[in-house]
């Protein structure tokens, strides 16, 4: 092993001094939000068909696929007076416990109707655990905070169908 040259220590002073005049690389987060990757897995969203009916048919496959066991689905029959989804049944209760969710995306893979997808929102912290249980209304609604998303064209990776239309 070569002995270190003591004079090399002084090169470091030049390096640190030069750094002062460079522009810092820090991103000023709350003011500037870095666009997330197009396939970023953030807050879940439930979707509707164009005619307003919910895509979810209450099959509970997402709940079965969920490794963190954070999804709760209670299904009910559609009736002619109360038609919520195009299928036989619909999700009367659809809850996701965000404090348990690990954002693995298995639910959107399991879903046969692309009813649930993971959106791009990551600012979902709350002051109370109760507020982290998202109900169906919250998941169906437009997210309050939108997050900038990077242009998908910049990446080679194909965007899955269920993701591209969320």
């Amino acid at each position, binding site marked *: 092993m070569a002995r270190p040259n003591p004079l090399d220590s002084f090169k470091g002073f030049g390096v640190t001094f030069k750094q*002062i005049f460079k522009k810092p690389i820090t991103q000023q987060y709350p003011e500037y939000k870095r666009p997330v990757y197009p396939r970023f897995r953030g807050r879940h969203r439930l979707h509707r068909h164009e005619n307003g009916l919910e895509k979810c048919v209450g099959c509970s496959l997402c709940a079965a696929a969920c490794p963190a066991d954070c999804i709760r689905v209670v299904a009910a029959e559609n009736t002619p007076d109360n038609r919520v989804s195009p299928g036989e049944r619909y999700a009367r209760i659809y809850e996701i416990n965000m404090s348990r969710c690990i954002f693995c995306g298995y639910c959107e893979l399991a879903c046969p109707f692309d009813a649930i997808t993971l959106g791009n929102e990551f600012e979902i912290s709350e002051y109370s655990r109760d507020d982290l249980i998202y109900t169906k209304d919250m998941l169906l609604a437009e997210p309050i905070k939108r997050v900038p998303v990077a242009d998908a064209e910049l990446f080679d990776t194909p965007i899955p169908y269920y993701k591209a239309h969320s």
Partner: protein
Amino acid sequence: MITSPWWISLIEAFLIINVLMLTFAYMTWVERKVLGRMQLRYGPNRAGPFGLLQPIADLVKLIRKEAFYPESAVDVLYIAAPALSAFTALAAFSVIPFGPGWDIAGYQIGGVVAPVSIGLILIFALSSLGIYGFIVGGWSSHSKYSLLGSMRTCAQMVSYEVSLTFAVLGVVLMGQSLSLVDIVEKQHDTIWFAAPQVVGLLVFFVGGIAETNRPPFDLPEADTELVAGYHTEYSGMRFGLFQMGEYVNMITLSALAVTLFFGGWYGPWAPLGPLWFLIKLLIVIFVFLWIRATLPRLRYDQLMRFGWKVLLPVATLNALVTAACVVAF
């Protein structure tokens, strides 16, 4: 009739202490800013414009924090130790001359708070006393980590104090005085002692960094490796007092370097007095920060070996050579 009553010194002392505390507060800001820029960060920029209110926010935080008190601590000493270390640090600045002195409305206002003829010895005496703050603080916390930390601290400070004192000896020999005012005047008449005493300056600077526990000699604190040293059990403003002692020591040492090696309040082109002093002080403090940003921390055995086997012989040799030269010419 020009007089210099005692209350002028009192007002001056009051002003200097407050200026020092303000300098300490904003030095933490400058340090974080400069370090940040050297690491391609912004440093504090949230509290107020350019983060200028950050020191005040820190102060409020420190004061409002619980002043933790270990059950088995030796109570009087535990409380007195941070005060001692802050007091000695502040008191040492009283003999640093920052200006030539002025006559205002018939009163003589000195350029130094306490114009004693052995100012240099007083500074070293006070800085030795300041070590007691660290020893006592670590010991009275009744924690083995604090005790080990304070042992580490005082071993380092005692070792490097010797080299620091020897490095100054050359300046004393050339200035023919222990009074800092005389040394500054002598430099004004001849040349800044940084030129003939360049070895002494280097030893003084390295010793000064070790004496004030600054990186790369910050073994007492070693934030990235250990929890802390002697102040492990301290929190709130008591911890703040230790920090203040450390930073004020650093200011005092930089001021001493300016006084002994860079001509004190005299400067080229214009007789600006205290302004020159401040400019030089800021440059020296910047070098302190620069060193912190650049050099990695020494290992403990490296620190001890460097102190006793390199720094002390060099300082002694420098003093001897200077003495021989002063006698010869």
